[in-house]
């Protein structure tokens, strides 16, 4: 798994790639829960390049969503890849997230 972050006009984007599992999700947790700058109005997690995600990845996204709500920050999933869509669906959490398909 690899993580890239980027700030643009109040939107903090976390780009995740590779396999998110029990081994790697703590690193994703840092990026989507712990290290988001207080100034960010929007937290966008770009999941287009995610080849695999397990329920520990989903749990981390739920944490990011909760933490963002409590900060009055919008939390959005960008272009989830087919494996991400699948695990969200199997977790019955696909309706809980704000999902964007467009080019940002």
């Amino acid at each position, binding site marked *: 798994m690899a993580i890239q972050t980027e700030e643009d006009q109040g939107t903090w984007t976390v780009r995740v790639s590779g396999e998110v599992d029990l081994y790697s999700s703590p690193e994703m947790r840092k990026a989507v829960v712990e290290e988001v700058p207080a100034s960010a109005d929007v937290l966008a997690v770009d999941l287009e390049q995610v080849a695999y995600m397990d329920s520990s990845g989903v749990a981390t996204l739920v944490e990011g969503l*909760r933490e963002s709500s409590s900060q009055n920050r919008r939390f959005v999933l960008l272009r989830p890849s087919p494996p991400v869509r699948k695990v969200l669906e199997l977790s019955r959490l696909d309706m809980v997230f704000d999902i964007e398909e467009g080019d940002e």
Partner: protein
Amino acid sequence: MNPDVRLEVRADPKLLRAVRAFLRSYLESQGLGAEAAANVVLAVDEACANSIRHAYHFSTTGVVDLVILADDAGLEVQVADQGETADPTLLRRRELGAGEVQPPAPGGLGVQIMYRVFDEVSYAPGERGGNRVTMRLAWPGGAGAAPRGGA
């Protein structure tokens, strides 16, 4: 059914990736389609992750023991550990009633994913403590319908 494979892996989260790679390739050689195979890989990974987290509490001296069997009717995967035995009330299938909404809680997902992917899931405490989950899936399309034997 004769087991095709028995895989004993040290309870280290870092090793799960290789287990998934094995399973993906194995299921492909059994002729299972890519999408169904991805679901099976996910569900088995969840079972292994549960042994590492809940049975062994991330102590990497534990061992996760997978057994994989297949015949013309379907696939069986067993995942066993010798760690702390689970509270059986936490291992039941839960489905949402009409109009119910899943509360977005960050836990309690893995076991339900296993129930949703496999046709049959049954938990039993291990012979000497620990847990064994047995998961069965009929090949999609009915008995012997999957083009098994493909390269």
